[in-house]
C-alpha cells in the first residue's frame, strides 16, 4: 500500500469538498480520480500533496504506512504537476527541473555535476534536450506539461500527483501525451494519481478509476469493472451516453411500454417504478416486430458522419426521444430514413430504482 487516505473530510466555509473519503492505492499503480467539476477530486489530490489539510477528526494520510497527515508539503516528497503547469517563469527549463535538487539542505544536496547529470537524464526522458535554455513562455502547452512532469520527477518522489495533466491542451496533443504518460508509467513504475474530468482519458490510461461525486467516492475499480458494472445511475451516466426508459418492475420482469424483458435479478420485487439504462450502442434496430422483446419507434434524424451512425428516435407510445448508435455497415444495410417506423430491441439493460438522481 503506497498511498492511503482514511476518513478525510475537508470543508471550505459551508461547502463540503470532501466527505469522509477513504482511498487505497497500491504501490506502482496508476489511478485516475474522475468526476465532474466541484466533486472534490482536486481537493483530494491537494490534500495528499499536503497543500490542503483535512479537517480535524480522525483524518489520516499515509505514505507507505507512514502517517504524513501533519507533515507539510515541503517534507512529504510527493511530486505534483499543476493544471496550468506553474513553471517558474523566470527560470530556464533546466533550472526549473533542477529546482527541487538545488533547494535541498546542504547535507543532502547533490553536487553540481550530479545535478547536471540528473537534469540531463530527465530532459532526455521528456525529449526536450535542445530546449534546456528556453524559458517557459517560449514553450508550447505540451512542452510545458512535460517540463512540469520532469520537474516533479527530479526529486524522486514517492508518489506522483497530476492535476488535470492534459486539461489545457488541444485534442491531438492530449492523446499523444496521455499515451506517453502511460508508457512513462510502465517504464518507471511510480505510484501515480491523476485527476481528470474526461472519462475517456481515465478509462484509457488508468489501472484503476475512482469516481467522485459531491466529495465522496462513488465507485472504484478497473476501467472494465466500472464501465460494465456501474454501481449507481450517476456512474453509469458519467461514463458515457445513456438512454433512460422509465417503466415498472414486476417479479423478475421489466415492463417498458408494451414490451416485457426478463430481468432475473429483480425477482421478488413487486410492482415498483424503475428506470432502465441502456447505452446507445446497445440498442438494435429491426424492420420486423420481435414480439414482446421489441417496441415500435420512429426515426427522427440520422447522422452518419464518422465511423458510427447516430440516430435520434422517438417511442411511438409517447415515451420520449432516445439515441441509437449503429455501425456504419448496419446502418447502410437497414437503409433508414427520417420518418420511418421501425422496431427496437434493448440489450444490456441496467435497472435502477426510480429514486435516482444523476
Amino acid at each position, binding site marked *: 500500500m503506497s498511498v492511503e487516505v482514511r476518513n478525510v473530510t475537508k470543508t471550505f466555509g459551508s461547502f463540503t469538498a470532501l466527505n469522509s473519503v477513504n482511498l487505497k492505492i497500491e504501490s506502482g499503480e496508476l489511478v485516475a480520480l474522475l468526476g465532474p467539476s466541484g466533486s472534490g477530486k482536486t481537493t483530494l489530490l491537494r490534500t495528499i*500533496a*499536503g*497543500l490542503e489539510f483535512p479537517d480535524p477528526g480522525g483524518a489520516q494520510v499515509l505514505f507507505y504506512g507512514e502517517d504524513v497527515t501533519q507533515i*507539510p*508539503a*515541503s*517534507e*512529504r*516528497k*510527493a*511530486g*505534483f504537476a*499543476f493544471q*496550468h503547469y*506553474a*513553471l*517558474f*517563469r*523566470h527560470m530556464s527549463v533546466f533550472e526549473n527541473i533542477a*529546482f*527541487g535538487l538545488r*533547494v*535541498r539542505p546542504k547535507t543532502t544536496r547533490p553536487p553540481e555535476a550530479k545535478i547536471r547529470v540528473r537534469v540531463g537524464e530527465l530532459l532526455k*526522458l521528456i*525529449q*526536450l534536450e*535542445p*530546449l534546456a535554455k*528556453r*524559458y517557459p*513562455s*517560449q*514553450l*508550447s502547452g*505540451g*512542452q510545458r506539461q512535460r517540463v512540469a512532469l520532469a*520537474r*516533479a520527477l*527530479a*526529486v524522486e518522489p514517492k508518489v506522483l500527483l497530476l492535476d488535470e495533466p492534459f486539461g489545457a491542451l488541444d485534442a491531438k496533443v492530449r492523446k*499523444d*501525451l496521455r*499515451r*506517453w504518460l502511460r*508508457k*512513462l508509467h510502465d*517504464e518507471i513504475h511510480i505510484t501515480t494519481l491523476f485527476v481528470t474530468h474526461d472519462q475517456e482519458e481515465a478509462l484509457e490510461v488508468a489501472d484503476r478509476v475512482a469516481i467522485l461525486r459531491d466529495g465522496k467516492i462513488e465507485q472504484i475499480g478497473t476501467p472494465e469493472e466500472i464501465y460494465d458494472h456501474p454501481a449507481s445511475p450517476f456512474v453509469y451516466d458519467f461514463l458515457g451516453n445513456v438512454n433512460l426508459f422509465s417503466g415498472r418492475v414486476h417479479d423478475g420482469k421489466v415492463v417498458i411500454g408494451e414490451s416485457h424483458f426478463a430481468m432475473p435479478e429483480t425477482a421478488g420485487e413487486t410492482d415498483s417504478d424503475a428506470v432502465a439504462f441502456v447505452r446507445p450502442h446497445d440498442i438494435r434496430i429491426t424492420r420486423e416486430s420481435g414480439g414482446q422483446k421489441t417496441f415500435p419507434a420512429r426515426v427522427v434524424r440520422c447522422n452518419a458522419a464518422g465511423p458510427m451512425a447516430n440516430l435520434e428516435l422517438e417511442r411511438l407510445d409517447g415515451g420520449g426521444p432516445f439515441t441509437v448508435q449503429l455501425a456504419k455497415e448496419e446502418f447502410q444495410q437497414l437503409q433508414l430514413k427520417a420518418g420511418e417506423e421501425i422496431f427496437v430491441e434493448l440489450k444490456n439493460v441496467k435497472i435502477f430504482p426510480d429514486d435516482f438522481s444523476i
Partner: protein
Amino acid sequence: MTAAEKINAPHRMSEPPFVRRLLIGISLAFMALFLVVPLASVFAEALKQGFGFYFQTLRDPMTVSAIKLTLIVAGISVPLNCIFGVAAAWAIAKFDFRGKNILLTLIDLPFSISPVISGMIYVLIFGAQGWFGSWFSDNMKIIFAVPGIVLATIFVTFPFVARELIPLMQAQGRTEEEAARVLGASGWQTFWRVTIPNIKWGLIYGVILCNARAMGEFGAVSVVSGHIQGQTNTIPLHVQILYESNNSTGAFAVASLLTFLALVTLALKTWVEYRNNELRGTAFTPVPVAKKPVNNL
C-alpha cells in the same frame, strides 16, 4: 485625386487628418504651456545669477543640512515601506483572511487624505498637548524633530509599493509558490527564489515612485517639522523658506535639485516599464523539436 489613386489610398477608419492634427496640436501646446515652460523656467531662474551663485546656494550649510535630512528621511521611510508593501501585498494576494478588504481600503487612505491632515494626525498624537505628548516629551522629541518627519513621510508614501505589487501578485496567483513548496523548498527559499524574482520589476517601480514622493513631500512634513533651519528642514521646506525670504534665485536653485530628481525618476520609471513589458511580452515561439512521435520514450 484620380480614380486610381482613390482605389489605392489606404482605407481609413479614423478621423480626417485635420482633426488628428488639431488634437495632437492641442495636447502638445497644453503640455508645453503647463509642463515644459515651467520646467525650463525652474532651471532658467536658478541660473539667473550665474553658476557661481547657483553652486554657492547649494553649498550653503543650511541647504546641505536640508539635503542631508531629506536623504535620511527617504533612507528610512523607503526601505520600511518596501518591507511593509511586500508584506501587505503578499498577505492580500496569497491568503484569504477576514478584514482583507479593510486592509486594502486602509492602504489607500494616504492617497485619499490631504497631506496636511496626515501631518496634523501626528501632531495630535505626539505633540506636546497630544495623547502621548507628555510621555514622549520626557523621553524623545517627535514633533518638530526628525522622528516626526520620518513618521509623516512613511504615512504619506506607504501605498506606493503595496499598490504596485498587489495587482501583480494577484495576477500571478500562488501556484508557483505551491510548486516550490511541494518540491521541498522552505518558506525563505520560496520567497527569495520564486516570489522576489517574479515581482522584481514591480517592486523597483514602486520603490522609485515611493522615493520620489518621500523626497518631495511638502504638506505633511511642513506641519510636523517646525521649519527649524539646519535641523528640521527638508529640501521642499527649504525652498519655501528661501522663497519667502525674497531669495527667489536661491529658492529655484534648490528647487532645481528636486526637478532634477523628478526627471531622473521619470527616466527610471520609463526604463523599468520598458523592461517589464519586454519580459512579460516575450513572444510565444513554440519550437518543434520532437519530430519523432512523442510517445517514443
